[in-house]
């Protein structure tokens, strides 16, 4: 159990892992996540499940801190100490009409199973995926297969439209396209921007939040966010929340709690 069966480098510092976890695979629905602890001294980190195949779950990991960097060095055959899940409420999948799925950077991986489910249930699915540059864009082929229309943006214009995913979304709205629902996953700034684009048009919009977690089962409250002025626990009440109600500023502040310690961890890790 928990063995890495396959590892692929999707982009610089972005790796895909297929992990043998039959119990979790059987239960996973789009939008759910696992908590992973890679070794005895390791911390517990939440990772959204990007796909499932037979007895494996697929995780896409961007190396941003010590633990994800460490995970990037693990090879096929390595057995993770713990993979716990599937956690969180699944994304609500319903036939709504036209659905726009927005994925930014690493967020394209978790938007994929949701996009697929939205398409399978009979929605017209328009997908917008974006990255800083062409080499960082992942899952393009997979997203194409499950979308009626796929739009691509890069910050530097090296591929697709130059600009942000919100530029493309704004464009669709300006064209007068009828949009019933928007689901967005990506960096907090991107999800915030998407919320601001759809807010004036009253388009129902959900985001999947990824705050710091410890247990992931509703016990510690590390992942608390404010939604509509109320404190909610992302791990058991989410991770999906109404984008127009989320306090993104608070979320950004709380993601920075351990910046100093993370730097220290990283320095020590690089020395080894």
């Amino acid at each position, binding site marked *: 159990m928990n063995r890495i069966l396959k590892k692929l480098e999707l982009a610089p510092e972005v790796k895909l892992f297929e992990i043998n976890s039959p*119990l979790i695979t059987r*239960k996973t629905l789009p939008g759910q996540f696992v908590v992973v602890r890679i070794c005895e001294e390791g*911390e517990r980190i939440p990772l959204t499940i990007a796909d499932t195949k037979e007895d494996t779950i697929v995780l896409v990991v961007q190396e941003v801190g010590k633990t994800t960097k460490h995970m990037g060095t693990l090879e096929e055959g390595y057995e993770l100490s713990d993979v716990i899940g599937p956690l969180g409420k699944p994304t609500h999948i319903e036939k709504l009409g036209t659905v726009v799925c927005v994925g930014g950077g690493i967020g394209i991986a978790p938007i994929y199973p949701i996009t697929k489910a939205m398409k399978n249930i009979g929605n017209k699915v328009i997908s917008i995926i974006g990255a800083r540059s062409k080499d960082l864009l992942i899952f393009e082929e997979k997203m194409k297969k499950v979308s009626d229309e796929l739009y691509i943006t890069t910050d530097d214009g090296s591929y697709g439209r130059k600009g942000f995913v919100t530029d493309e979304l704004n464009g669709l709205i300006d064209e007068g396209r009828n949009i019933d629902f928007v689901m967005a996953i990506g960096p907090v700034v991107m999800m915030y921007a998407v919320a601001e684009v759809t807010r004036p048009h009253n388009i129902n919009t959900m985001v999947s939040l990824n705050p710091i977690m410890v247990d992931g089962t509703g016990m510690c*409250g590390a992942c608390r*966010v404010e939604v509509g002025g109320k404190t909610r626990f992302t791990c058991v009440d989410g991770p999906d929340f109404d984008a127009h109600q989320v306090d993104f500023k*608070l979320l950004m*502040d709380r993601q*920075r709690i351990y910046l100093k310690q993370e730097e*220290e961890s990283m320095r020590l890790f690089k020395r080894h």
Partner: protein
Amino acid sequence: MPKVRPKKTPIPKQSPKKRVKNFNEVALGYSEKQAVKEAKRCLQCKKPVCISGCPVEIDIPGFIKLIAEKDFKEAIRLMKEKNVLPAICGRVCPQEDQCEKVCVLAEKFEPVGIGRLERFIADWEAEQGEMALPPKPSLTGKKVAVVGSGPAGLTVAGDLVKLGHSLTIFEALHKTGGVLVYGIPEFRLPKAIVQREVDYVHKLGAEIVTSFVVGKTKTVDELLKEYDAVFLGTGAGLPWFMQIPGENYNGIYSANEYLTRSNLMKAYLFPKYDTPIVRGKRVAVIGGGNVAMDSARTGLRLGAEKSMIIYRRSRKELPARIEEIENAEEEGIVFEFLTLPVRYYTDDKGWVKEMECIRMKLGKPDASGRRRPLPIKGSNFKIPVDTVVVAIGQSPNPLVPSTTPGLETGKHGNIIADEQTGKTSKKGVFAGGDIVTGAATVILAMGAGRIAAKSMDEYLNTGEW
């Protein structure tokens, strides 16, 4: 009454100055000589009321007499007939509210140090190396799933496996022991001791599966297809906050998170362990129970210059164990009694920098029998802080109730179980401990486990619900 030493034999401790700089256990335990001396204080009452003060009805005069006679081996055997976790109970039970409260000596003097003797005899056994196992029972062929490896679950598992049932314990976290590993700090309950007790239950024959979240990885209904009975001992869950402005600023923790980071994830050993924790200079802990004491004392050990307990009632009403209050006072924890936080202020980066409080006075007794705290108008004042730990309790974890149709829950989301049998509204499913009662004590959870195990055994043998 025959002549008796009026005071308990003192228990050796690390000095306050030394211990606030480490996470090692504070109390060091009795030597054989000290234990025998203390055991001889017991009057060996013909009608021992102390037993009725114990939720698991340990034969207290019996094991104490054996200690006085230096027959330690027999003493621990007798103890384990009723209590499979004596090293833990000896350390964390609120004896002053239970066995020691009703000890006859307590009318005039200090009661017998029952907890200290319990701890002594358990530690004595551990020092002998291999723990004695009872003879293996013949198997009944019945399978039981225990959900949660805290005090309630371990007790059920220990009791039922001794009766020949096949046991599997499912634990959501990566380590077994529940609150004993994530909640109670090393300096009060060394994790090696919890591991020893868990190992004992494992050696008795119980299988243990960690990182398995019942309600998510599998539901209770799925377990019922594989097991003849299920015990739910999932413990307390969602931490409460006060719902006051600014409570989600950086630096404000629930006690569950603060203690889980430090205890379970070993953040006090960061960066050797990867999990970080805020090492505040001015720590304020809200609440007055054991969890609050543990948090304030953890703050001190993480390097705080000032670690405070903010409690809305007075010292007399503190719900924590007396021993832990005294330990906290010795260590220099500052108590702000009759004080209630009303809001937090932040710096420009989202970090808490001040808390505003209001002074309280005590009015008439409320439903709990304690005098109700009332705010004094206009008494607001500010305290500079950089870390806050909210330790005001928690509600039951919703993962199991919300995924188990037919399982009746109460107003606060707790599972409803019969006090005499542990039976829930769902056939074959029993429950006990904090998930039923709300946050309580280790020994009460064990008591509930003991009761449930008895009626589970009946159910498994007869099939009658």
